[in-house]
């Protein structure tokens, strides 16, 4: 899998980039948005002003609607991500260390790689009905592939010398997996999980918009159907914020777990 650079464009290393000043452009965009509506450059019906969206967001939070649906969506997304990641690491590990596993899973992975997993949502609705199972299964399948591929490549790139040294020092075969291959592949694995994190939200929201009884996607869709556009925008904003925070959290975990890694710490990356 050719790596889309998963890091954000770091740009320069100026100190002030690290502070809240960094988000000033977003504030500028919001300001332009508000002005455009207030000055009647854009039709209010199509673009509710920022303050209306904020008010709607506040209302949703207050009456618990946001919290409940957010929790449901996050539960589905993360459950799928967890299951998909664990399975993906296991399969990737197996494929990288066993030619038989590689021969079995390899063609399956290569073929299903190009299938948009959201295309399976209607099928799962047929099979499992509308609800958590459909969503979670879709998410699992979407998260599997990036984690499998990145684990595979990570394990394969562990330098042979490290494995040789470990064996020379008396490491039995099964321990080599746990003490050498997995740590050696950790950066790659995390990169795959980060990609899967992006997917898990997309699949959850997609499934909820296609057909669901609960969840943020469903909420946003409903508001849209009923013409409550400020609420609709608010819901979308909530989704964007949650996905962003989840990504940051994963990055923090990743940087801690990989604090020993050479290349992660020689480049300067804007957070």
């Amino acid at each position, binding site marked *: *899998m*050719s*790596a*889309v*650079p998963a890091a*954000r*464009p770091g*740009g*320069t290393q100026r100190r002030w*980039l690290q502070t809240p000043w*960094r988000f000033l*452009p*977003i504030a*500028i*965009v919001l300001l332009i948005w508000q002005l455009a509506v207030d000055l009647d450059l854009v039709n209010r019906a*199509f673009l509710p002003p920022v303050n209306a969206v904020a008010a709607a967001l506040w209302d949703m939070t207050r009456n618990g609607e946001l919290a409940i649906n957010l929790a449901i969506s996050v539960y589905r997304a993360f459950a799928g991500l967890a299951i998909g990641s664990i399975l993906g690491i296991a399969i990737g590990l197996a494929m990288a260390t066993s030619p038989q596993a*590689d*021969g*079995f*899973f*390899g*063609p399956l*992975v*290569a*073929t*299903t*790689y*190009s*299938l*948009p*997993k*959201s*295309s*399976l949502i*209607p*099928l799962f*609705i*047929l099979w499992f009905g509308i609800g958590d199972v459909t969503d979670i299964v879709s998410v699992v399948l979407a998260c599997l592939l990036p984690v499998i*591929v990145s684990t*595979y*490549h990570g394990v394969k790139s562990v330098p042979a010398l490290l494995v040789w040294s470990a064996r020379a020092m008396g490491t039995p075969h099964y321990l080599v997996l746990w003490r050498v291959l997995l740590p050696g592949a950790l950066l790659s694995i995390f990169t795959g999980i980060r990609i899967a994190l*992006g997917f898990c*939200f*997309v699949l*959850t*929201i*997609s499934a909820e*918009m*296609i057909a669901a009884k609960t969840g943020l*996607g469903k909420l*946003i869709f409903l508001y849209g159907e009923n013409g409550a556009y400020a609420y*609709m*925008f608010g*819901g979308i904003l909530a*989704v*964007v914020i949650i996905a*962003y925070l*989840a*990504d940051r959290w994963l990055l923090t975990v990743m940087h801690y777990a990989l604090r020993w890694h050479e290349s992660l710490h020689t480049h300067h990356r*804007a957070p």
Partner: protein
Amino acid sequence: MNRFIPITAPPEAASAARRGVAALRAFLLYAYPLLLVLAAWELAGWADLVRPLFLPRVISVAQQFWLLLREGEIIAPLLVSLYRTFLGLAIAVVAGVMAGLLMARSKWVNWFLDPLISVGFPAPKIAFVPIFTLWFGIDHVSNILLVAFNCVFPMIVATYHGAASVSRTLVWSAEAMGTSERAMLYRIVLPAALPHILSGVRVTVPVALIITFTTEMIAGGGGVGAALMFAQRFFQTPTVFVYILVMLATGLIFDRAMLVLRHRLIPWHDEIEEV
């Protein structure tokens, strides 16, 4: 990961039949898991383990495929979807490459776009479907723009990384030889960043396809996605399978095409090709 490599017979046994058999054998050895899945599918149907509503017989899916093909229900929606995908992708590539190059060369552009991309990249932009349908309706435009919206982010990031990694000494040499900023962008930075950009396109094409299909599933308005949802609503399972396979085939073909394209366009680049 195993790649399908046809075994070529030794030069002495040049008979076409022998080569054909060898190739078939290699294919079977490689694709046996897929054949196993197919066999399991057929077995489940034959032994009546599942109701046809959930898992139709392989033959009925094949029959449905021919039926739909003859009635034009495959090509027409596919062309609609592909039209949207490509247009959206084209917009995203042009806008993304320009933005990425500018970000790499101008710190102000970088400062402005960076947080927007940081926040936008991890966001599930499919959530914006209701906004786009509100603004642009259900037909082509909203779909195309949503595809572009989704794809511009990875394109910017890929271009930026390509442009930012142009070796300093290359740029300095060009500056010393009196290259203007505009020429720098087009004649130095862009070609040097081309491998990254093409990598970005390769990764973005499946995204474009997915967004097209998913948007059609959510909002309707023609295309394979809408046809798939339609079939699901009326419990026409064989049709559902047919459209899923159509999406799979489309994805596979495009992935292959991208590989070929990459080799043709940048033969000088010695990056090791991965799966």
